[in-house]
């Protein structure tokens, strides 16, 4: 037997409407604020990005087969960290938030993508010059900003879950992935 909550026959007045909206919004807020991130979530993403920038920049600058291996290994480390962290989030909460994968892990948030591009560019330039010490500095800075951007998105999500829950469009992600792959292939081919 269904509860009285299911009845749709009762007349609906303004007070019922107000209560229904308040109740539904409160349930949504409770659900979103009850979601927990696995421990050291943003930190691990930042570290993975820093490792990826160091290995990527060094790999490109080496211009030999070991450089390619280095470049690929950094990407594998990041992909593994991202996959494990998302799996942990899903297992911990029994829920999936597309925005977390897109904005936090894949860095589609404006600040994350700009800082990543700048840090990767600076690290790659430094790896070709005597200022090699700039490579780890740029990587750490890039990873830190990436992690901070993720943390900022998470706070925004918990404040307004409906506005931030959805992930990126699949087509957009596929195009971005294909472009990144083409970029790497060109880099490897030009070495």
């Amino acid at each position: 037997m269904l509860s009285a909550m299911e009845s749709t026959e009762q007349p609906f007045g303004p007070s019922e409407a107000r209560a229904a909206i308040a109740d539904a919004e409160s349930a949504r807020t409770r659900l979103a604020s009850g979601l927990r991130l696995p421990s050291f979530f943003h930190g691990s993403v930042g570290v993975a990005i820093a490792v990826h920038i160091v290995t990527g920049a060094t790999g490109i600058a080496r211009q030999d087969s070991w450089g390619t291996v280095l470049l690929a290994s950094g990407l594998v480390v990041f992909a593994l960290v991202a996959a494990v962290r998302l799996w942990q989030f899903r297992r911990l909460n029994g829920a999936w938030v597309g925005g977390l994968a897109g904005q936090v892990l894949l860095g589609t948030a404006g600040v994350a993508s700009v800082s990543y591009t700048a840090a990767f560019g600076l690290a790659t330039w430094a790896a070709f010059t005597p200022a090699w010490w700039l490579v780890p500095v740029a990587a750490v800075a890039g990873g830190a900003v990436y992690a901070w951007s993720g943390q900022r998105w998470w706070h925004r999500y918990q404040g307004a879950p409906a506005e931030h829950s959805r992930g990126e469009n699949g087509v957009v992600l596929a195009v971005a992935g294909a472009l990144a792959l083409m970029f790497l292939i060109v880099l490897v081919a030009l070495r």
Partner: protein
Amino acid sequence: MTPDLDPILQAPARLKLMTMLTAVSEAEFVTLREHLAVSDSVLSKHVSALAAEGYVRSRKGVHAGRRTTWISLTPSGRDALKAHVTALRELIADVE
């Protein structure tokens, strides 16, 4: 004039369920049941009714080593919810 309320969403539990689903891309049946504080059978009937209208989608999966059901809002469900909430707000505004 009375705004057009969606009869499928007039049940508070369904409105709550649909609104909760806007906060996530997908949620496990058990997670939704705990937040709604209803029994398995009640939630199952609500989900079936909403799925029959094309408002939600359910799929079988595995969570923590056990079989489970994941529920998500469909684009038409999102539109229906938006229209229903707009109608509710109009109803409130009419008396203010």
